[in-house]
């Protein structure tokens, strides 16, 4: 789909930074369709650990250069979404990623965890399982 806004979740970012073929194939297709890639801010909390070892991730985050912020309203929506699905508190970050992607008006979210992300997205985001 031309010009779509596509959010990337933590797993996709980690795979891509490692040079994984599926993640590279995904980014190639999204590039061919002029998609705008967006990284929801909570993804940073999930993927960044040690600045001395995260160079590949930092490079990719800088190249995407589109961070979607998680505001108080988005955090509230994430909590309500988590409550509605009945998923456990361990899925809180996923809920924040989904809510942040929605607030940025993403139409798609690319994820390595399509089960939980699909449950949290409902009909509001189209899930690309990588």
């Amino acid at each position: 789909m031309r010009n779509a806004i596509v959010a990337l979740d933590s797993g996709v970012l980690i795979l891509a930074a490692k040079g994984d073929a599926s993640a590279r194939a995904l980014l190639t297709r999204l590039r061919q369709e002029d998609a705008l890639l967006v990284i929801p801010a909570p993804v940073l909390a999930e993927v960044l650990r040690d600045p001395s070892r995260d160079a590949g991730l930092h490079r990719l985050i800088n190249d995407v250069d589109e961070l979607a912020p998680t505001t108080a309203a988005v955090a509230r929506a994430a909590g309500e979404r988590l409550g509605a699905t009945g998923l456990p508190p361990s899925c809180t970050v996923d809920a924040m990623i989904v809510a942040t992607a929605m607030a940025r008006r993403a139409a798609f979210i690319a994820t390595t965890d399509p089960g939980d992300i699909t449950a949290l997205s409902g009909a509001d985001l189209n899930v690309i399982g990588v």
Partner: protein
Amino acid sequence: MTGLRDDGLRHPGLELESHREYDSAMATKSRSPKKPTKRTPTAGGDERKVKRSFTLDRKVDEEARRRIGARGLSAFVNDAIKRRLQGLRIQAWLDEREAIDGPIPDTAFSRIDDALKKAGF
């Protein structure tokens, strides 16, 4: 071709009356020693604005004004350029990864094409 002044905010020291002035100013600027700049990821756009003058095909200009109006043109152009720049950076990244990891196998493209189709992309 038709000239079009961007309606963004004014940038101190860069108020130009024509394309020629702009080109001249940029040429002068390019001869000045540059400090290295570090780009940091932006959240929802960078609030700092600069004023630029650029040229559009008349047909493009007319359709843009008809579809989005003159007032929305800066945001429209900014978004288009932002997308293209991201695309160029991602392509450079993909090219570098290919040099390191080798070409992407057809099986990976098949898997991703199926996933994109399933998602309605």
